């Protein structure tokens, strides 16, 4: 079997004395959608930030496409496409200019014809000269996703990609994510939507208080935990869902 595209080993992340991530390990293969689920403050974004290179973990190793994040930070970054939770681009730049900017910093040639093709593909050919802030939520997500994929990276990180989208835009985004998977990309996504995790993820990890407490396919997790007392207590409609398993494992308390 090929080497995983992403390998995270024994990751520890501290904010001063608070440990946000504790000995987290997982891997993601090419052509796989991996979901990272957890309540607020569980350590999802910290884990993702470490993979992205935005924060340095105190312990552990991260390999992206075989490159060690610490030893080859730029090569690791070059092999990742990222859609941040609160993606923001320079508000003064138009959609075309933003795409050209990120093509340039990822070293991708972007002749006018290619740019036009991209804009047609994401159904934004009429919005090319609009500023990012003038786009709807769904349009913004499509631009963000195009930029994440502009250099055809083997690994794509999507931090809550469907947050705030209407059902149509969400479905459309799921199809785009699945098409990326079918093209051989490894995808890591974080989400609070169990429906989304069940619908698109091949495997998921549930993270809580900085620890991975479960990792498997959505159906395997349901099968494994469907008889747990906490999961049965969380069940609302008789049939055990991934959300019931999630609540059963992480508790009902609201996180700050």
């Amino acid at each position, binding site marked *: 079997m090929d080497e995983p595209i992403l390998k995270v080993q024994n990751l520890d992340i501290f904010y001063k004395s608070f440990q946000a991530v504790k000995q987290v390990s997982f891997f993601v293969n*090419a052509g796989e959608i991996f979901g990272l689920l957890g309540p607020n403050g569980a350590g999802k974004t910290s884990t993702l930030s470490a993979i*992205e*290179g*935005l924060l340095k973990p105190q312990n552990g190793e991260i390999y992206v*496409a075989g490159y060690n994040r610490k030893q080859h930070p*730029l*090569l690791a*970054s*070059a*092999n*990742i496409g*990222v859609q*941040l939770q*609160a*993606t*923001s*681009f*320079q*508000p*003064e*730049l138009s959609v075309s*200019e933003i795409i*050209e*900017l*990120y093509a*340039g*910093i*990822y*070293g991708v040639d972007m002749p006018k014809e290619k740019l036009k093709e991209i804009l047609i593909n994401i159904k934004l050919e009429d919005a090319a000269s609009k500023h990012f802030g003038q786009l709807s939520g769904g349009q913004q997500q499509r631009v963000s996703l195009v930029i994440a994929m502009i*250099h*055809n*990276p*083997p690994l794509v990180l999507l931090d809550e990609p469907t947050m705030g989208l209407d059902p149509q835009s969400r479905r459309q985004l799921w199809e785009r994510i699945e098409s990326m998977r079918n093209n*051989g*990309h490894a995808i890591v996504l974080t989400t609070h939507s169990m429906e989304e995790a069940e619908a698109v993820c091949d495997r998921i990890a549930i993270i809580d208080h900085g620890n991975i407490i479960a990792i498997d396919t959505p159906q395997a997790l349901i099968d494994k935990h469907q008889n747990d007392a906490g999961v049965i207590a969380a069940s609302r409609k008789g049939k055990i869902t991934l959300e019931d398993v999630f609540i059963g494992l992480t508790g009902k308390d609201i996180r700050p």
Partner: protein
Amino acid sequence: MHTNIPSGKQVLTTLLKADFITQWRNRRSVVLVLLVPVIILISWKGLIKNFGGAFVIANCITIGLTAIGLMGYSNSIARDRDKGIFQRLRVAPVPSWSIMVSRLLVQLAMILLLTTAIYIAGHYFDNITLTPVSYLLGYFVSIVGGALYLGLGQAIVGRINNAETVNSTCRLVYFIFIMVGMFGDLGMLGNTIDQLVKWSPYGAVKHIIADAIEPGNWSMVTNTYLMVTIGYAIIFSYLGIKWFKWNSNK
């Protein structure tokens, strides 16, 4: 499917293009930065007889440099940090220094534009004409003085996370600098303030610009002012880099 690191030249060129477009789209604030010193230059026509053209030009360039560092640069950095624009750039295979170098090169262009605008306005409105050497020396010390104010702006953005607070703090510091600087320099605030102003960032920058555009006045005292200016620039830049956080939420 492996991708490679783009060349440093390509990254910097692309960032520069985007930063210059951003600056151009913000041309209203650019005009304001230029307009205030030009208006002062025109309104101070009467002072040229008493204090000389170099004094007036030096004051106006110093006011403009203060505006570039404290109103333009610091606010744009604070806003982009607040909006997560830097974080988005930093997840790309881009060395962090290149993001800042691109921003600073835009500000360098602003400093040269400001100095040129003051030279032109001085010539047309106040009949102040300098020698080619004076103009060139003036550009050089304007860059040195500009570095001081960019460093000060960086230190404020480094110390304060919230973009709104950065904005109000910079406005306050700008106001204090130009009011105390201008009136103190004219001797209107008494001897003690006059001495303080002379060695303040405002006074030091104003003196080196004034003596650079009248090279005959350059002396050991000017050298001291130049060293003080460079010292301020180094201290402010050091603090600005040390305190700076790329993410305002942390």
